[in-house]
């Protein structure tokens, strides 16, 4: 009988060969798979090595407390020996507030901080329409951050309590009627203006009433006169309000019930406060203009289309810096003689126009990406042009465009550094120049740029990651 050998139990599995497991396998597959990759890896290691050896001593010898650059240098020499170099972060320690706020009065730092915090509270209902959970989380985070930052920024206790109560109210409201929060978004621009520039609270309130007049007139007339006529009447009434009623009314109310924050002039704005103010204002105001331009560019009306295309192509064809010089050098030629308003406002206007042209192209992309069927369906339902745009086209087109809008904003935010060339104190060049003109810090170079660059990186990187997240999330098409 033949002898059979049947294994009754499995052999214990052998460990994989050394090149196929653990670190070695990972190294082999990811770093040294072939001669080309090996060269690349070695080159990469060399690059990292040379960067580290060049910069590490400088970082390690950092000085955090000193009165001036020469003192910094003495400390570095004393601790690390003759010829050693070291970063002098003492400058940042002494001047950080200028990089963040410019010459904004120090006892009022809480105002920009609060305005910035509430910005997120105002954006929340737009970003998370209908998502109670996310909305509450964001509002809670805003409350927490403000709670931690407002007190060191010398906010009065009453303000902190008020803000916390307000945000708690918002969170509660988010649970029942999240749409109500959009009203806060609507009044936020006026609130922000008041917090940043100060002055009487009635200035923004009465100005906002102009919009109430506009809306009221529209609603009152729309039944009788049709949408176009009533919209035009509303705008006209609002213009009359702003031109003739606004100023006297403000003065009257202010006389009866004065309530004001200390006034801060725009020339005291600087650093990141200036960059964020210009960037956020410009992007906010450019959004409606951009939408109109994009619609105009898509329009069948030849003249409207030509004008829109002309405007968009002109703005996109010239560098931002020439527009900024226009704001500082030319605008006064184009305005009636002796009208004069401050340079920051002029810069904001020009930057808004600049952003509007870019946003128009972004939104046009969104409009073009919509399937034709959506337009045809809207027509089939018998909607007129504006209804179709408002109810069908724009909500979808804007949703598609959000990531691109965010990246336009990132670009714009980085470009706000160019305002230094018209004498404003942007964080990168303006404030740095002032610091470097100070006798104590004359000769400092790397530290301010690294500091400002790092802050820019954190903000822009954060936003770009967020827009990528949104892009993934908003992808609702069926592939």
């Amino acid at each position: 009988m033949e002898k059979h050998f049947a294994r009754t139990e499995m052999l214990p599995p052998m460990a994989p060969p050394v090149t196929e497991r653990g670190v070695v396998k990972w190294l082999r597959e990811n770093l040294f798979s072939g001669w080309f990759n090996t060269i690349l890896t070695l080159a990469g290691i060399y690059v990292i090595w040379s960067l580290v050896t060049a910069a590490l001593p400088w970082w390690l010898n950092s000085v955090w407390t000193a009165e001036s650059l020469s003192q910094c240098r003495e400390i570095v020499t004393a601790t690390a020996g003759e010829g050693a170099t070291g970063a002098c972060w003492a400058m940042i320690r002494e001047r950080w507030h200028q990089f963040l706020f410019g010459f904004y009065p120090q006892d009022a730092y809480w105002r920009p901080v609060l305005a910035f915090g509430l910005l997120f509270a105002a954006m929340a209902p737009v970003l998370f329409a209908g998502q109670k959970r996310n909305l509450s989380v964001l509002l809670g985070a805003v409350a927490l951050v403000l709670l931690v930052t407002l007190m060191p920024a010398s906010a009065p206790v009453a303000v902190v309590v008020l803000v916390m109560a307000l945000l708690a109210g918002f969170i509660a409201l988010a649970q029942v009627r999240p749409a109500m929060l959009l009203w806060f978004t609507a009044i936020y621009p006026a609130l922000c203006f008041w917090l940043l520039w100060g002055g009487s609270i009635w200035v923004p309130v009465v100005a906002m009433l102009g919009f109430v007049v506009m809306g009221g007139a529209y609603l009152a007339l729309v039944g009788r006169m049709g949408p176009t006529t009533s919209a035009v009447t509303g705008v006209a009434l609002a213009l009359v309000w702003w031109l003739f009623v606004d100023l006297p009314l403000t003065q009257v109310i202010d006389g009866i019930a004065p309530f004001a924050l200390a006034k801060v002039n725009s020339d005291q704005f600087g650093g990141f406060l200036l960059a964020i103010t210009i960037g956020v204002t410009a992007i906010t105001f450019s959004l409606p203009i951009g939408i109109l331009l994009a619609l105009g560019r898509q329009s069948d009306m030849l003249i409207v289309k030509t004008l829109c295309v002309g405007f968009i192509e002109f703005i996109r064809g010239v560098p931002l810096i020439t527009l900024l010089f226009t704001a500082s050098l030319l605008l006064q030629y184009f305005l009636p003689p002796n009208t004069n308003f401050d340079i920051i406002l002029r810069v904001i206007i020009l930057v808004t126009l600049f952003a509007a042209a870019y946003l128009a192209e972004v939104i046009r992309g969104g409009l073009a990406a919509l399937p034709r069927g959506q337009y045809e369906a809207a027509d089939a339902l018998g909607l007129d042009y504006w209804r179709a745009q408002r109810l069908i086209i724009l909500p979808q087109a804007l949703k598609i465009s959000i990531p691109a809008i965010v990246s336009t904003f990132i670009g714009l935010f980085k470009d706000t550094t160019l305002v230094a060339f018209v004498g404003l104190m942007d964080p990168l060049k303006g404030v740095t120049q002032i610091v470097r003109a100070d006798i104590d810090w004359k000769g400092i170079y790397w530290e301010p740029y690294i500091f400002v660059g790092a802050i820019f990186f954190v903000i822009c990187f954060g936003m770009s990651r967020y827009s990528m997240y949104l892009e993934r999330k908003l992808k609702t098409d069926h592939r």
Partner: protein
Amino acid sequence: MKKSVFLGVVAATTMVAGAAAAQSTLEAVKARGELICGSNTGLTGFGAPDANGNWAGFDVDLCRAVAAAIFGDGTKVKFVPTTGETRFTALQSGEVDLLVRNSTWTVSRDSELALDFVAVNYYDGQGFMVKKDLGVSSAKELDGATVCIQTGTTTELNLADFFKQNNISYQPVTVADDSEAQRQYLAGACDAYTTDASGLAASRATMPDAENHVILPEIISKEPLGPVVRHGDSNWGDIVRWTYFALLIAEEKGITKANVNEVAGSTTDEEVKRLLGLADSGDLPAKLGLPNDAFKNAIAAVGNYGEIFAANIGEGTTINLARGLNALWTQGGLQYAPPFR
């Protein structure tokens, strides 16, 4: 209906503008409650803000003196930083009332740009600074050298003229501001740094190794620096001019920030009485549209010319400039005020 609203807007803006046009600069400043001065974006000693945003410097103090003359308060002044490119436009457009930003008085600026230079608060000239070990003792030996210049100034024209006249060549490196020029010069990116001699001295003073740098003897241009106002409002020009002269007269007569009140009480000098606007001395300041004690306030706010000089840029400060041409005429300098009568 729509068009009429638009026309209304246009008309309204024009009306507002028209009302503004009729106002003189002094009235506008008074109505606003503060003086707006165009300043440098940051030039050590002459005009730069400190860590708290307070502007200080030689030029800045002149502004404060004018503000004190108008309001009796040297702090009622706002500084608008201007660059070499934007400064004159800012003045022309009315964005600033007064430009005190070490600007050189030239005929083309006076005529073509429609500006008025009302005084010379600093007599300067363009010079060169080189490193000592370069072994150069005259600017004429700089053939083939790389020279750092600040752009947007008369400096670059003077430089071109100088090298052309002496038939030597150079390589210009234009830089945007003083601190950048200094960095490049120290790094050896240029052999020579040229700007106004005061600026050179100021730069040299702040260098870690000042003794290794020399300022060459040649002064290749005249650079009378002074406050500038818009053409066409002579009264405003007079106010700035006489505020400046008042500071000079104060130095001449030994009136200082500290003793101005005391002098006002005890003086027997008729010119001083007129200057300080004392009771029985007529009302010369009032004829300029100022309060009678305007110049007293100006001196009390910032001190006399000599004090301003000494506090910001004079010997003993880090900048360490000698009075030189800017000494009073009684001491062999050029600073000379017409009689106050």
